[in-house]
């Protein structure tokens, strides 16, 4: 008997171990969670539109800020990344309650380099955009959890295209890695303005037992099969009580 149990349990355990978990293995998505709700380093900034001695907190305290980290000699992602950001921001002409701060993480970049970059993108006159450098870039990138790696062969940094949302108190509220669409940018802007964004995974054909079925076309939410499962434990418990009562009543003393 004991031997059978051991053999059976071993088979069950081995089958678990050999099963692949395809479902939802942690992805690079966790990188976006790093340093969320921690304070960004209050770096001194220098840029054309900034007064001398301005610090990052002074910029963020005026308006929540979207920080883009780039370097001007980049031959890779920085240009398409900035271009996409510019286009997405242009779609939000009515939204003025935020700054976009573009900063270089390459200590070789000067205020002039960033100025030229702003000009190239036609952003030097746009009040929402600031281009700046800092002499404390190491502390700044460390506080953000951004880790560019210098590749001496290509004379380039290996780095993520990173947007950081910073609220008016200087806290990092959201990060976006990669070139992202306007909807994602909307989530970042909402987060720096400290507004709650309700998100919920939509039902899909593989989700058989959802509690509610939301119809995106009509905006209506109808009860789904899942609700039955919420009531099921109480119902099954009642059935068990009644069945047990039925079977034992013959022996009732």
């Amino acid at each position, binding site marked *: 008997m004991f031997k059978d149990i051991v053999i059976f349990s071993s088979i069950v355990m081995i089958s678990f*171990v050999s099963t692949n978990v395809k479902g939802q*293995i*942690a992805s690079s998505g966790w990188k976006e969670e790093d340093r969320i709700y921690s304070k960004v380093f209050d770096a001194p900034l220098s840029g054309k539109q900034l007064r001398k001695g301005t610090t990052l907190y002074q910029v963020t305290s005026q308006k929540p800020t979207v920080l883009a980290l780039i370097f001007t000699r980049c031959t890779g992602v920085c240009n398409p990344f900035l271009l996409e950001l510019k286009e997405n921001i242009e779609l939000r002409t009515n939204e003025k309650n935020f700054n976009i701060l573009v900063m270089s993480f390459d200590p070789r970049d000067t205020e002039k380099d960033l100025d030229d970059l702003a000009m190239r993108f036609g952003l030097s006159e746009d009040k929402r955009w600031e281009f700046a450098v800092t002499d404390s870039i190491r502390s700044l990138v460390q506080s953000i959890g951004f880790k560019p790696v210098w590749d001496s062969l290509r004379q380039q940094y290996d780095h993520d295209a990173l947007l950081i949302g910073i609220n008016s108190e200087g806290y990092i509220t959201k990060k976006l890695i990669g070139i992202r669409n306007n909807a994602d940018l909307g989530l970042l802007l909402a987060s720096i303005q400290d507004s709650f964004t309700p998100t919920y995974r939509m039902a899909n054909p593989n989700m058989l037992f*959802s509690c*509610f079925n939301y119809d995106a076309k009509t905006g209506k939410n109808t009860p789904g099969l899942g609700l039955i499962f919420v009531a099921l*434990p109480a119902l099954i*418990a009642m059935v068990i009580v009644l069945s047990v009562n039925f079977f034992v009543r013959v022996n009732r003393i």
Partner: protein
Amino acid sequence: METLKLRKITSVWIIIVLTLFVVAIVLGILMRLNQGEIIQQSPITFYGNMTTHGLTMIGIWFVAGMAAVNYLLERYVKTSYAANLFALVLTVIGVLMLWCSTFIGEFHAGWTFLYPLPFKIMWAEWATPLFLSSLGVLGLGWLVWSISLMAQILKKYSISQAFAWQHFHKNPKVETPPFILITMITLIGVIACLIAAVILLILFFIEYFSTGSFVNDALLMKNLTYFFGHTIANEMLYLGLAVIYELFAEVSGRPKWHTTWYVALAWNLSLIFILTAFFHHLYMDFVQPEGLQIIGQIASYLASLPAAGVTVFSILVAVYRNKINWSLTNLLFFIGVAGWVIGGLGAVIDATISNNFILHNTLWVPAHFHTYNAMGNVLFSLAFFHWFSNQYYHHKERQNTLKLSILLIGGAGFLLAFYIGGAESIPRRYSTYPSDLPMGATLASIAALFASLYLIAILIFFFNISKKCLKILSSSPQSS
């Protein structure tokens, strides 16, 4: 009549519970020391310890209540030794599997293992199925045990008698003892929440093995998780209350308590409220319809009224201006009821929707549930353990006041740090606190100190009670 076998198995339960309790408290103190920056644990170790601590604590105080109820139930009906033993074996196997998944496999999704966290593999891949299976093993053992106890009650009492419905009429012919009524109501709640756990585990496993062709609805999984988690955490308190109803008057030298119409009504209503109060865990889930949130709030208010109101009233009537034979047993019961009520008030404050916006996921949450557990339910069970072991090996115990004082001072200081932290919006489940919340670390260090006092008191109880239980285990039929 209780048998030697029952006495021995109850002793084994007690020794296991107290041993695991000491280990789980040490894990708790380590967590507070880490939050206080006195020691440094990696987040994985912290959250692994938190998961082990939470589940072990819930598990042991549930089985402690069940073992006590099983022992006392033998006064009224014959219980099944086989079901008791089955639950014991499965509990030991389940705990070993659980600890393997957390300590070796580094599974650390918290005791509520909220979907989809178990599938976000940040630990050994085998740890997720092992963790879920450990819950399956524990749940199976406890479900069989609960159904068996209920079946034994129903062999003697009809359903309406077990629910004490005859007490709604004048001069009922048969009296349902309060112990039977509360046990019956509680067992049904326990069975319902264990079935919720079974459904939850089945859904987890279907998704796990479906390799992506089946996914679960997060809202359904959260509802089921709290149907199980919230309900079992409350039902284990009710098991403790059943023991109080049976023993408090007896050990105090007072007449036995009887079931009246209001006691029957209160406990019948409790069953409904306790099965719907869990909705208050979903206040932040905006997709849950408002109606269910309101049910959650109303049920939370009402769940505390009948059981708490009637029990507190009964205890106060029993002790007020009456001569009581105070002993360690009824003192523990009495202080435990006070702890339960204080924790319950903290819970009701948090279950009020407008307050929940502020207190949600702050240290207020562990504050209230630790109050009615560490200073409520634990004391109910310690009282039973003490009474049980003293029945067979009675020594005049010295320094009861000292033991109780250390327990009280340690417990109160430990809990106060949680409450102050909660009122200061310090978040729960943070392995270390950000520098903006310096109070978090200070409170945690103070809490660790007081929790160590609590541990000292528990160790004294542990040695005194276990010594006697070991003697019971080695006793023969002749010596008994």
